[in-house]
């Protein structure tokens, strides 16, 4: 199935492509271990879903375009093979990659038959898939929020011990200063 690269079975997160992605993100954080490692892995997951949702959004529109072109009326079953071929054709056409003149002509012919050009067909497909596109946009937005929150969490967890130490030192220094000034005042009073 060309429309969506899916991984069979339960272990989707075990897929090599996903594992590679997680490793790349971990590498950019210099392979943190333990708690920080888990935070970075969860961060990587949010990045991953943005990629998947964006790809699915495009696939949804393309397959809707293919369905519109393959549609032969209400009472005739959509030819799945034709739909898949059209999906591939549209996909290469929109990517501007080379497709043979015959395929181009077939596509143009089908679009003219339906009273569309590439732009209007895409607009129509987007309109039809709008509820799902809207959901995907919300999901992408959620991932961005997740990334922001997890990054904040990572930074707080990572840098807080250093900050804590720094604050402790500052407090100690202040205490010493206060004690010293108290001693000075006492000495001053004693002198007077």
């Amino acid at each position, binding site marked *: 199935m060309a429309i969506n690269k899916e991984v069979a079975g339960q272990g989707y997160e075990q897929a090599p492509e996903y594992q590679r992605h997680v490793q790349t993100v971990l590498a950019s954080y210099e392979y943190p271990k333990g708690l920080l490692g888990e935070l970075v892995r*969860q961060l990587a997951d949010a990045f991953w879903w943005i990629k998947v949702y964006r790809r699915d959004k495009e696939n949804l529109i393309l397959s809707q375009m293919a369905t519109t072109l393959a549609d032969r009326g209400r009472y005739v079953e959509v030819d799945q093979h034709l739909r898949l071929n059209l999906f591939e054709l549209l996909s290469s056409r929109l990517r501007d990659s080379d497709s043979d003149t015959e395929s181009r002509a077939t596509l143009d012919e089908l679009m003219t038959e339906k009273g569309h050009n590439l732009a209007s067909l895409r607009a129509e497909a987007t309109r039809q898939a709008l509820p799902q596109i809207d959901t995907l946009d919300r999901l992408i937005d959620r991932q961005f929020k997740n990334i922001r929150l997890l990054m904040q969490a990572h930074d707080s967890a990572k840098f807080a011990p250093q900050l804590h130490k720094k604050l402790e030192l500052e407090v100690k220094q202040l205490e010493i200063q206060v004690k010293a000034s108290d001693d000075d005042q006492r000495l001053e009073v004693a002198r007077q």
Partner: protein
Amino acid sequence: MMTSVSKLLANRANAQKSTGPKSKVGKQASSKNAHKHGLAGSLPGGERVPSNINGELVNDARRLGYSDEDAAALVDALHTNRSVILAKHAAYAEQPIEDKMPNMTMEKIEELLKWWMSPEVKVAPRELRYIVKLLYKEVKKDNDPVLRLRRKIDAHRKLMRYEQRAVNRVRRAVKDRK
């Protein structure tokens, strides 16, 4: 091939005709049918994670300056978010081939149903048509790539609120350091 297809057809056809469980045990079992991920209920920390890993993470949190209580809360929040992540991956995983209805036309389904039914079984043509239609819906559900993709997107939409809650919990747990 023929046996497994007919088995699938039989299972799904019988399921469509079912009027639901009658016994207490059956009712109890079917009450768990809608259970998808268990994220709505309480998730005891470390339930899905081996205790040694759990302990390691708690120790790591302590090393980062968290009190025992805060470290446990943080690890628990991370586990909850991990459960949401696993549920998301499971929702996007492709259905195993053996559970999928092969791509068939209505005529083929009818033919297979007739082949599968023993000659003694008398099914009214109207009932047969009804079963064929229901099975065809199932076939489309399993084989139409757009429908499958829509189903996955919808599953993620349903998980979104758990996701939001889980990530916010992680952020709060990291902040709550005494």
